[in-house]
């Protein structure tokens, strides 16, 4: 779980007038560069090299194959479907989390009883490890699990099915677990953003006769743009990093229907020992993540005339 992401992207590069008086700073940033940058760039470089090999991870003389891993990748149906799952997963989880998060934040700003209890319940999943919750969700969505039990008692027993055991429902299960886990964070961010909204704006809308829904859609929602963009970037990167939940709940199955790039790379590299191919997949994943982050940042800046 890396929730963290530089959505603000603020780099205060104010050039200071008396720069010469400042002591040299390179030694100060060196540890961070060595640890953060060094280790990571070393790994990326190493992965790049591995991606040109046909190697099982153990044999002493791996065979160099140039860019063949990459050309194979373009024709790999599983790679493209993993990418498609990631895109679908991002759209669905982002839209639902945003919707629930905003509604919940508005309600919590509206003088409601037991607000603290609600807040704790919705935020607790954020701090729990996906790896620990995975067996719980396997149990809940099993054919004889609690989810079907609830459906049964709501009179919806005809909807009961083996949720994680069939292709059509496995991906939605993975999505719902992710939504369960991250809505708390979305909510807290929107909650904080809403307390910054100028109350006179809302009062003016009310005087003009706007109802609750109208105020939410026309006044509150546009004021939350910054937060929404931030969360969008966060979810997009998060979707590309997805590993724990699909791996532990469905192992990418059934029939690869919950295969993500992370799980596919893990299977290729560790289980099937196609280390070279796994490395090529890693590099592609990295490039996609970088390009995406840059595009989203640029788009966010261009569309922000007022900020």
């Amino acid at each position, binding site marked *: *779980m*890396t*929730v*963290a992401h*530089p959505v*603000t992207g*603020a*780099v*205060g590069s104010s050039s200071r007038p008396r720069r*010469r008086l*400042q*002591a040299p*700073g*390179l030694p*100060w*940033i060196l540890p961070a560069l060595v*640890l*953060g*940058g060094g280790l*990571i760039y070393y*790994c*990326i470089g190493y992965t790049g090299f591995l991606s040109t090999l046909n190697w099982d991870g153990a044999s002493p003389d791996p065979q160099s194959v140039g860019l063949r891993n990459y050309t194979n990748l373009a024709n790999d149906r599983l790679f493209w479907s993993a990418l498609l799952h990631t895109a679908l997963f991002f759209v669905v989880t982002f839209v639902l989390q945003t919707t629930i998060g905003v509604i*919940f934040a508005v*309600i919590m*700003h*509206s003088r*409601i009883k037991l607000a603290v209890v609600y807040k704790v*319940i919705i935020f*607790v999943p954020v*701090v*729990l*490890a*996906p*790896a*620990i919750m*995975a067996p*719980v969700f396997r149990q*809940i969505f099993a054919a004889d699990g609690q989810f079907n039990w*609830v459906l049964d008692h709501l009179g919806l027993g005809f909807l009961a099915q083996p949720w994680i055991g069939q292709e059509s429902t496995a991906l939605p299960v993975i999505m719902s677990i992710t939504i*369960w886990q991250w809505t708390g*964070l979305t909510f*807290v*961010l929107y909650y904080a953003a*809403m307390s910054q909204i100028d109350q006179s704006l*809302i009062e003016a809308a009310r005087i003009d006769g706007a109802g*609750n829904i109208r105020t939410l859609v026309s006044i509150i929602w546009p004021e939350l743009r910054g*937060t929404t963009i*931030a969360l969008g970037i966060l979810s997009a*990167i998060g979707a590309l990093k997805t590993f*724990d939940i699909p791996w*532990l709940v469905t192992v990418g199955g059934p029939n690869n229907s919950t295969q993500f790039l*992370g799980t596919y*790379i893990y299977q290729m*590299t*560790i289980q099937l020992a196609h280390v070279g191919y*796994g490395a090529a997949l*890693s590099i592609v*994943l990295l490039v996609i993540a*970088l390009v*995406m982050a840059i595009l989203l940042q640029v788009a966010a800046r261009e569309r922000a005339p007022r900020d």
Partner: protein
Amino acid sequence: MFEVRSRRSKVLLQLLATALVLPYLFPLIAMVQGSFAGAGWGNYQAVIAVPGFFQFFLNSAIIAAGVIVLVYVVTMLAAYGFAKLHIRFREVYFWMLLACLTLPEVVLLTPLFTTTQAIGLYNTYWAVILPLAALQVPFAVLLTRNFINGLPEEMFEAARVDGASSLRGFLYLVIPLTRPIAAAVLIFTLIGAWNDYLMPLVFLQSQDMQTITLVPQFFVGEFSNDQTKILASAVLTAIPEIVAYLCLQGLFERGLSAGAIK
């Protein structure tokens, strides 16, 4: 935000909130209820009786502590350097660090695997601590740098005029003044390290080194898929996290959302 005057709409809003929150509560209830199925407390006794169960907690704590110390030291030094000292090509270095934020963990697997084996770090705490810290540092530096940039320049100027070295400036100005942001860094680093699954999975082979995120998997083997005991172990491993959150609610919420708020 919503204006609810009439009694009826107040009740409606409360009902809506309850309906929204129930699906979030449901898995937690299912977890606790499932852990008591069959043998009741016996499930918990069986889990606790497994030799080395508490070792998992200890290992997670050691790794989290290691990551936090490393991230804190490295971040404070670098953020100060970036924000207040003279560095040629400063922004180039900074963006090099920031680019690492998009990095998925899985990309690190093979290189780290072969390298840790070659230098003898495989199956040691360091094999997990170092990459986890490396993954957290870029974001921590971004946050802390922004924070230090916001501190008044005059203060540092005055310290310099009074003859304080940059080391003294760091010790007597930066360290005390950055406490609020340090708390945020501490929390998200803690959560990131404590909850990580992939690194311990790949780099910690012997069972007495493994972390709590590997507990469910361990119990699948130990209890040959007895779900009730696996759920009991899930409850036991979730408790410290929930207690920590309840004790430090504000800190957790601020720390984890620091990513999106400036």
